[in-house]
């Protein structure tokens, strides 16, 4: 479980996050949604500790991460995985070396054990046999899956994904969503996902937080999305005329 308490963040004069309080539950896909510029990425970076909040606290279970020293924070990070929007794979290393990197750095496993673990997670993301390829030799969707493989290789308790399916075709996007959701449920991970993809919201939205101009304006799950009459939520979800027509047709029935 991760709890954000009254998080504020300013860059210079402009306040980007204006006091956000929310609980991200374990074993669930916790979605942060909102229009471009709403502050999703900033929120995620604060949760994961890449940004310091101007004020407010972030709790991982009973640990207040905002008050930890860098060294203590690094200990916690052994339990954290993150999938970056651009995948952030190390381009001078092969796929296997990428995934093995945290194992090399932090475990005393033998090379054979590490290779086995790499194959295990590659299998989990349905990408067997790409071990020797370089990231540049794989497609965007594969890079996302390699990124997922790398972020779960240390069996994290917390998983963060910044727009995991942006830039992918709808089918691949769906696969990535399902993959993240399955991994979350299997291992009871606290997963936080940034997205503005409606399919994700309706597919894996166990616990959704809608940000608007730096404020938390709505929370609920995917069922409650349909039932809610919150104007901002409706405007966000049914942004396109096509979706609006579908909704109106559904209501008319």
């Amino acid at each position, binding site marked *: 479980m991760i709890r954000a308490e009254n998080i504020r963040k300013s860059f210079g004069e402009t306040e980007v996050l204006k006091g956000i309080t929310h609980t991200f539950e374990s074993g669930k896909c916790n979605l942060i949604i909102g229009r471009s510029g709403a502050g999703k990425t900033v929120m995620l970076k604060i949760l994961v500790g*890449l940004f310091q909040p101007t004020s407010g606290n972030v709790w991982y279970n009973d640990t207040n991460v905002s008050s930890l020293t860098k060294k203590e924070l690094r200990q916690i*990070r*052994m339990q954290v995985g993150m999938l970056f929007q651009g995948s952030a794979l*190390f381009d001078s290393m092969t796929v296997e070396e990428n995934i093995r990197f945290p194992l090399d750095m*932090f475990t005393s496993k033998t090379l054979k054990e590490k290779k086995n673990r790499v194959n295990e997670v590659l299998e989990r993301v349905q990408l067997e046999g790409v071990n020797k390829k370089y990231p540049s030799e794989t497609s965007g969707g594969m890079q996302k899956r390699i990124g997922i493989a790398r972020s779960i290789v240390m069996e994290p308790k917390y998983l*963060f994904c910044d727009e995991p399916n942006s830039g992918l075709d709808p089918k691949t996007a769906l696969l990535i969503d399902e993959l993240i959701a399955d991994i979350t449920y299997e291992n009871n991970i606290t997963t936080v996902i940034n997205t503005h993809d409606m399919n994700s919201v309706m597919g894996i939205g166990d616990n959704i937080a809608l940000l608007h101009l730096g404020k938390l304006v709505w929370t609920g799950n995917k069922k409650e999305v349909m039932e809610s009459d919150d104007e901002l939520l409706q405007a966000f979800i049914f942004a396109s005329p096509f979706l609006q027509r579908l909704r109106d047709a559904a209501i008319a029935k």
Partner: protein
Amino acid sequence: MNIFYHLGRFLTLLGSGFTRPENLRMYWKETLRQMDDIGVGSVIIVALIAIFMGAVAALQFAYQLSGQLIPLYYIGYIVRDLAIIESAPTITCLVLAGKVGSNMAAEIGGMRQKEHIDAMEIMGVNTASYLIIPKLIAAVIVIPLLVTIAACVAMVGGYLAVVPTGYLADVDYLRGLTAFFVPYNVFIMYVKSTTFAFLLTAVSCYQGYYVTGGSVELGKASTNAVVISNILILFSDYLIAVLLTGY
């Protein structure tokens, strides 16, 4: 101006880098890779420059000494000490700042921009340490070796400039090379080359580590790495000269 801001941030970065490594083997592997990069990658350019450095010094002293009462074998002596005390460490490191320094700044800066540094931080890696310390260690070991090579090659360069042309007999040149040898000068050479190696690496890593923005900023960081390293090298060159020679 904001020079104190940069100095503070620079020292903080170095400070947080000097901690116990997460995994000695990974650091060692990275250090070896850097040594290979810096050393093997630079030896040809360093030798090429050194040969001309020595040749020009020999020719110009031959020119200056001609018609004077100073014995000609002094050419060898002057080429040697000029190389050891000044030109080998300083010119080599100025060139290496351009080659190795800009490369380091671009490498680390690229990692910052592509979020590789963030990715490592989230894994729990102390990037200030893992990305910088192996480079510092490699540079501080390899660059003095390169400078040693440069000093030796410069003496060969001097030989080639005056002996085959018949200006000076080779025994005379060699006599000069071995005359008035002061081991302390070699010490000065190593103090200089170690200091310059540290400066150019630390400055370049700092420039790369805090890159923001895009390719224009990356280019600027790379340029800054070279320019600032060069200024600091020359400044510390002067300082070391004052401190170690006592003039």
